[in-house]
């Protein structure tokens, strides 16, 4: 078999794996947003029948998995491996959520880039023949994320205008070797990029350099320009991060502004939903991909997109100890076929 590596950070799959199905589950606010009608399931209570934010997130993740598996006409035991992760300490939303499925699993942490990390690993596993069907899943929950990274929900404070709103949502994807209309033709795995910003309330600015790095690397590794993609879709740079990304890419001699979409901007209506700089969280990119992007690729409306979820790799400890907020972004090339 000839080598599938391209450039320094990318893989081009000789026999590309396919995305067989996806599931998306969101909370109330996301359901009221512009993409509201496209999600598979909306829970108006945000609690998913559970008592705590964390349990709610786990249940949400399990439901997304079951939806994706069910839509592919499969059962949990048909899935060979699962790649999953979330934002909580020790990844408990995933461990507690997918336990009932009894699928051999790898737990991931890539902050909000986890959907890209999980999809890339799933595609690599399927393409390498390590499994015929692989499940990728991730989630975030506004309540558990605020509690973990910021303040109790009842605490009275003013969010800065650069702050983003963590999406309550979970997206799951079955990747496999059976043919569908969506294939993953390649991936570009991102490096950690740190421009020294310390403001965890301005995550778009922290992650934009990583997105720029991965997008430029993808162009170079595959010998492409932005012209060869219908859209380049980042995960959760939001309004400020997206602007910064356009500037950074321009500095490198490219212009992607009219081809760029951001899940953090698509998820909420900025005027009416009071989400400041846009949506964020693992669930932001994952549910937008599952509910909004993949159907357009499946129908052929979009022929080839570059999906680039971005993550801010900080913890409350690193933040308190004065460390900067490093970013990471993974690129997944998704094509109609």
């Amino acid at each position: 078999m000839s080598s599938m590596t391209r450039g320094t950070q990318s893989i081009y799959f000789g026999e590309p794996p396919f995305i067989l199905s996806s599931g998306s589950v969101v909370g109330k606010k996301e359901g009221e947003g512009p993409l509201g009608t496209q999600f598979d399931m909306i829970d108006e209570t945000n609690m998913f029948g559970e008592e705590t934010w964390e349990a709610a997130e786990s249940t949400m993740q399990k439901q997304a998995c079951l939806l994706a598996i069910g839509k592919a006409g499969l059962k949990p035991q048909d899935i060979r491996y699962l790649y999953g992760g979330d934002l909580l300490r020790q990844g408990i939303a995933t461990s507690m959520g997918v336990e009932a499925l009894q699928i051999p699993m790898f737990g991931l942490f890539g902050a909000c880039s986890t959907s890209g990390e999980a999809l890339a690993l799933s595609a690599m596993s399927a393409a390498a023949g390590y499994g015929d069907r692989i499940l990728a899943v991730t989630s975030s929950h506004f309540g558990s994320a605020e509690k973990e990274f910021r303040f109790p929900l009842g605490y009275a404070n003013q969010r800065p205008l650069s702050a983003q709103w963590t999406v309550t949502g979970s997206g799951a994807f079955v990747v496999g070797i059976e043919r569908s209309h969506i294939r993953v033709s390649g991936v570009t795995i991102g490096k950690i990029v740190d421009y020294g910003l310390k403001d965890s309330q301005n995550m778009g600015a922290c992650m934009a350099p990583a997105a720029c790095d991965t997008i430029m690397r993808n162009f170079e590794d595959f010998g492409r320009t932005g012209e060869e993609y219908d859209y380049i879709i980042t995960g959760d740079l939001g309004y400020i991060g997206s602007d910064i990304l356009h500037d950074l890419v321009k500095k490198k001699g490219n212009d992607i502004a009219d081809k760029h979409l951001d899940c953090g901007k698509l998820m909420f209506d900025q005027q009416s939903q009071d989400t400041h700089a846009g949506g964020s969280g693992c669930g932001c990119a994952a549910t937008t991909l599952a509910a909004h992007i993949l159907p357009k690729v499946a129908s052929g409306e979009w022929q080839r997109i570059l999906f680039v979820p971005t993550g801010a790799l900080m913890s409350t400890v690193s933040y308190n100890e004065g460390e900067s907020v490093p970013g990471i972004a993974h690129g997944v090339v998704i094509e109609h076929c």
Partner: protein
Amino acid sequence: MAQTLEEKQKQEKAYQQYVKEKTPQHNVFANMCKAFLVGGIICTIGQAITNYCSSRGLDDTQSGAWTAMILVLISALLTGFNLYPSIAKWGGAGALVPITGFANSVASPAIEYKKEGQVFGIGCKIFTIAGPVILYGIVTSWVLGLIYYLLMKVGVQL
């Protein structure tokens, strides 16, 4: 490709400056006006309670204690009904600085961490936000007390 440390620092500094210019900020003047209004209303309510207590024959200390207790109760209730965050979102520091803001900073962790248990949840975490205020408040009082004591010792009349 490897950057020298100096180049990296220069790049970081330039980026930080650039991000600062790109990032919108709340309008400070508008925020100050709102804070003045909200803080003023809270303090007026407090004054009304104090006046009422005095009119019922309580002395200054007793009136002050009743005022603080009633404001704290109102704030805790508003926090429980999830109304206080909306007041603070609009009123900013006007809602944070009075005693009602302090009550909110104790009540909100109690609500949030209740699910982690009475001891490790509420017990350990109730002062996660108010703790620093209490600690440094006491330390500051102690320092001021010491200065007061020393001044008295050298015969300064205050």
